[in-house]
């Protein structure tokens, strides 16, 4: 069927819940209301005893999810906006990510924390952030960000079946931006594997989430033959895909919306420096958010990467 990102995620949740009775959904307004973005719509009606509207407390939601997981269930908590993840950071960083290690493998925490993230929807403060670095930096977590409905379904099913804690960020800007064919039958996309969206020899652009689509727009009429990598999983990172590509193209740009300093681009550049420095024909460029608070809607456009900035970076890298 043709589905947008919201529908694809909903389909994945519904199909997995049908199959695996240990899955429980919990969060603010995820039940009768179907979530503020309607991602869980209809699931409460279908699986009444496994979808829970919780009190308004993010640490409580994630902390309880850890306990649910320790007693054999598969909790999928939703945090309404990424900006409200912060109270739950302690539970994620101090416990969810560490319990396997702390108990020497006797316990694990197979939870999937879902949260919409990123800007571009003209929202209030704390509704447009890109906090993925905090989670990528935390040992023991996996971090997944889909760029399209087809991937969202396959990645989410993999995340749910994964025995480790997964942070699943949903780029809210493209929740309903476009539809594509999403098979109703079950399929998975492995975590830790990037997707080479477009092959090319001149330059590698590495990105993820809503910026995959913007990058494709930016290179549409380019005179260069550009390779585009959609990371899909930010942790563990598909280093092979990155290094293989850069070893061939010798040029690289990384696009993300998160702030520049210690954004994922920094790690990718360090990786390339360590392993493929001699393949490089030009300094690697970053097109990212700035090291500032995401502005409110009137100024937000000055924060976001955009097609022009991507094009300028291409010119710079190619003319070096």
């Amino acid at each position, binding site marked *: 069927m043709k589905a947008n990102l919201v529908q694809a995620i909903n389909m994945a949740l519904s199909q997995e819940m049908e199959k695996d009775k240990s899955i*429980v959904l919990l969060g603010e307004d995820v039940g009768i209301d179907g979530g503020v973005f309607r991602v869980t719509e209809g699931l409460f009606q279908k699986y009444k*005893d*496994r979808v*829970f509207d*919780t*009190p308004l*407390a993010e*640490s*409580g939601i*994630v*902390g*309880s*999810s*850890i*306990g*649910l*997981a*320790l*007693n*054999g*269930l598969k*909790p999928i908590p939703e945090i309404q906006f990424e900006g409200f993840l912060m*109270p739950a950071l*302690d*539970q994620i960083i*101090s*416990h969810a990510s560490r*319990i*396997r*290690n*702390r*108990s*020497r*493998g*006797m*316990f*694990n925490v197979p939870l999937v924390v879902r949260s919409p993230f990123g800007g571009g929807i003209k929202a209030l403060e704390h509704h447009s952030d890109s906090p993925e670095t905090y989670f990528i930096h935390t*040992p*023991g977590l*996996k971090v997944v960000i889909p760029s399209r409905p087809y991937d969202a379904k396959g990645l989410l099913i993999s995340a749910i079946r*994964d*025995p*480790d804690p997964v942070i699943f960020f949903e780029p809210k800007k493209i929740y309903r931006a476009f539809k594509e064919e999403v098979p109703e039958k079950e399929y998975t996309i492995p975590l*830790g594997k990037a997707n080479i969206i477009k092959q090319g020899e001149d330059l590698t652009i590495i990105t993820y989430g809503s910026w995959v689509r913007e990058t494709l727009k930016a290179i549409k009429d380019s005179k260069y033959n550009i390779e585009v990598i959609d990371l899909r999983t930010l942790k*563990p*990172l598909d*280093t*092979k895909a990155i290094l293989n590509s850069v070893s061939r193209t010798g040029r690289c740009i990384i696009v993300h919306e998160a702030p520049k300093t210690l954004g994922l681009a920094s790690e990718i550049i360090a990786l390339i420096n360590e392993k493929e420095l001699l393949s490089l024909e030009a300094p690697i460029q970053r097109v990212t958010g700035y090291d500032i608070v995401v502005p409110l809607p009137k100024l937000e456009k000055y924060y976001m990467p955009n097609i022009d900035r991507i094009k300028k970076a291409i010119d710079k890298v190619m003319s070096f």
Partner: protein
Amino acid sequence: MPKEVIHQFNVEFLSVLDEKGKVDSKLMPKLNGENIKKMFELMKLTRILDEKALKLQREGRLGTYASCLGQEATHIGSAFALGKEDFVFPSFREQGVYLSRNIPIDQYLAYWKGDERGMKFTKDANIFTVSIPVGSHMLHAMGYSWACKIKKESRAVITYFGDGATSEGDFHEAMNFASVFEVPLVFICQNNQYAISLPVNKQTKAQTIAQKAIAYGMYGIRVDGNDVFAMYRATKEALERAKKGKPTLIEALTYRRGDHTTSDDSKKYRTDREVNQWKKKDPIDRLRNYMSSKKLWAQDYEDELDKKFNEEIDEAVKKMESLEAPKREEIFNYMYSELTDNLKEQQNEK
């Protein structure tokens, strides 16, 4: 219109065994002589282990250690009420609870020596690892007990924490969630009067910690935490209530007679006089007095216990110290279900 009282609340205090060893027969829980002796023995074992651990730490044979001197009745009285299938989320000062769950002493000591393998318990021990960040683990107990309810298991969960933890936001969230979702959970606050240096009257202006339960629509009770019978009775009742979907907060009023940990010096913030006053309320002395009056105790019985437990612990120390050293590669092995490529590479760095 004049203001009217729309709700009134009471806070109860439960005490069964007084400082001289006399019990209130109306409140005395049903326990036979064997049970009472078992409680006494576990309290003794806890204390002897605690003394030994402190000694080992001073000799450089153990890492930082948190003593539980004076809190043995809180541990043993409550843990004795647990069924084998019930589950426990301790904090980090629950030696007696671990011993009650039959965790091997050598393994427990290995943890305090700095060896992660010490926290690898068998599943059927039904007790979780130590949790260091104060107050954050009550939510895990909340979730675990919630899963008991969802899975229709007929067991309950206990979580232990200190008076300091009640200032943490997660305490509030766990209490609130537990009450809202009607889970089989018992919260046991070991109010040992200090969070490192901060006395409880600076931790909260509430007259009791037990009363905090009221705000969550939950039953709360203050219990004499140095009274093993009161702790047993309150916990037993709370576990039964929990299994009917009514969580409870038990405030166990006790006193941490030792330092916070071996890195602390409590002389900086409290007087010897205060500590000595609590020594008079010693939980083991009280139980011994009672047992003596019931002919359940004799000096040679206790001498034998001392000898037996000392030997048992010495044996455990030997075992702990001769444990094969953990290997470097282990530090990577438990981060994920499978080693990621990245970690494989780091593991192979030499």
